[in-house]
């Protein structure tokens, strides 16, 4: 049976690597609102394209504003939480307010073909990679 002994420096190196990767990563680093802003984002890759998914429960489509310029996407909007005037509050955890977040993706995107979908409190942005930014394969002659 193969046994591996723990290397005391492994964890340290791993931590350092993660930190470096985070610092040198182009992801959302230079944007005006980096990590920690609302709404929280997950960024995925689907083939050549980028998919940005975010959770926006309780925000109506009409209250969302999405703009694309260059490779920066701005997601802005507002959320209201309403109780009736006569209601007595027992528990209050949901937050309301305005938000405005801009993210810059490190690839060129085709702004004309960006698609936004909002369903069940999930906003998904499909950002197709610009044709001129795609890698060309060159056959060796």
């Amino acid at each position, binding site marked *: 049976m193969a046994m591996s002994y723990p290397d005391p420096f492994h964890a340290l190196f791993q931590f350092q690597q993660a930190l470096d990767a985070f610092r040198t990563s182009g*992801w959302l680093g230079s944007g005006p609102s980096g990590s920690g802003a609302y709404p929280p984002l997950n960024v995925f890759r689907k083939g050549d394209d980028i998919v940005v998914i975010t959770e*926006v*429960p*309780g925000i109506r489509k009409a209250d969302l504003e999405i703009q694309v310029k260059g490779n920066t996407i701005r997601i802005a909007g507002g959320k209201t939480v309403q109780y009736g005037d006569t*209601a007595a509050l*027992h*528990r209050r955890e949901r*937050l309301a307010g305005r938000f405005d977040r801009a993210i810059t993706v490190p690839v060129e995107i085709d702004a004309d073909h960006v698609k936004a979908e909002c369903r*069940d409190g999930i906003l998904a942005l499909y950002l197709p990679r610009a044709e001129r930014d795609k890698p060309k394969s060159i056959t060796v002659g």
Partner: protein
Amino acid sequence: MARSQALEVQEKKELVSKEEKTVPARYYVPTTDIFETDDALTVVMEIPGVERQALEVNIENDVLRVDARIDFSKYEELEPLYTEYNVGHFTRSFTLSNNIDQQQISAQLDDGVLTLTLKKAKEAVPRRIAIN
């Protein structure tokens, strides 16, 4: 006032359960508002990403339990590049007091927000008595 307030990210709270699950999925506690009016108790829960058919609301032994499941198949062909939040099912339960009419509970799901309206039982509705 509260109108211009900026929205903050709320860290998702993972469920700490006494019972163990047989499937290795994550469960989160949905953020919930509860308020009471003269004739009903309203429970509002945020369950983003849950579809109508994946939602289960039941009452057993005066415990109202909401189970909301995420369809992970949507994430299958996506390769994560950068993540700020985790995705998982939602579950939360509340013990109801006996002044709720358990036959009259209505549920509505809009934009990832579940609203449960629990009508109060007849005898629990405050009655105004006119004084002569």
